[in-house]
């Protein structure tokens, strides 16, 4: 077995345990697509067009909830803005890669892939590429399958279960995992509070206002923390 093939196998093995926490997420997205009455194929296409669970779930629930398309798209994009940081962090490593991979690689750049490759930035270019592609492909295939499974389960689940409430619960989980210091908590509370106060704004644009003010609040809190 060649070295690169062994590294690719390592990538698949590393990706599998990280995929487990994504399973309920994918299933809930499938259920959400069913609940919103969106065309199932269109909803599912987000799995490979966007390839990012939080943004896909945001888009599906907002479009289904009657939010203006521009506000839904804007919010989903804001959710994914963190990928700018990943792009900047991996840019030096990618300079040693062939052109096709510099263009294609970013398509697969999800949170888990970033986390796994940050410890391999100094690998040989061929090894890095084999590992990166193996992790990315594993997630890409499994993710599309799990969201499709959620679509199949959706019509079977009784409405009385109120399973749509699983979505805010998952967001609470994501939020808690992202809080390392109190400024993050300030950002979250300000985002939630302002959205609550602005709930009456047309086309539910209060969401974007809340998110923006929350970000500013976190930024200011960080400044205070550093002083």
């Amino acid at each position: 077995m060649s070295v690169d093939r062994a590294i690719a196998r390592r990538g698949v093995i590393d990706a599998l345990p990280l995929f487990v926490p994504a399973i309920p997420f994918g299933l809930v997205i499938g259920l959400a697509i069913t609940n919103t009455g969106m065309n199932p194929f269109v909803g599912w296409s987000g799995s490979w067009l966007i390839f990012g669970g939080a943004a896909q779930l945001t888009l599906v629930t907002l479009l289904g909830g009657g939010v203006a398309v521009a506000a839904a798209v804007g919010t989903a994009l804001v959710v994914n803005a963190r990928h700018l940081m990943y792009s900047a962090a991996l840019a030096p490593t990618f300079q040693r890669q062939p052109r096709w991979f510099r263009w294609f690689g970013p398509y697969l750049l999800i949170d888990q892939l970033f986390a796994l490759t940050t410890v391999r930035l100094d690998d040989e270019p061929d090894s890095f590429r084999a590992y990166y592609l193996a992790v990315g492909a594993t997630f890409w295939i499994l993710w599309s399958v799990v969201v499709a499974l959620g679509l199949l389960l959706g019509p079977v689940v009784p409405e009385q279960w109120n399973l749509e409430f699983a979505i805010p619960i998952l967001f609470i989980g994501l939020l808690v995992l992202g809080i390392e210091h109190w400024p993050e908590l300030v950002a979250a509370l300000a985002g939630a509070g302002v959205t609550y106060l602005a709930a009456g704004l047309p086309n539910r644009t209060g969401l974007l206002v809340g998110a923006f003010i929350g970000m500013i609040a976190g930024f200011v809190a960080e400044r205070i923390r550093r002083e």
Partner: protein
Amino acid sequence: MSDFLATAVVGLGTYLFRAIFIVALAKRRIPETVLVALKYVGPAVLGALIVALLTDSDGNVAIGIPEVAAFVAGGFVAHRTRSHVWTLVVGMTVYWLTLALI
């Protein structure tokens, strides 16, 4: 069709976020201020989204004892276990129980 277009636009935007420094701006550094601000996009958006998801089409926020109980329980479990599976299981169980009891 507009749903598909919206999905495609988010997909394209996400790709641009992921690709811009790798493909085009490898020598550029993100200003420190932007990096700090980006750190707070996630928590701010999630906080806002949770409230938005509980808002109906008339702009009323439906949050009662079951929702609050489920958020507290789910948040606590997420903090302790760092597991989405357990967060979901405990959060939904508490939600169903409080709904049934009230």
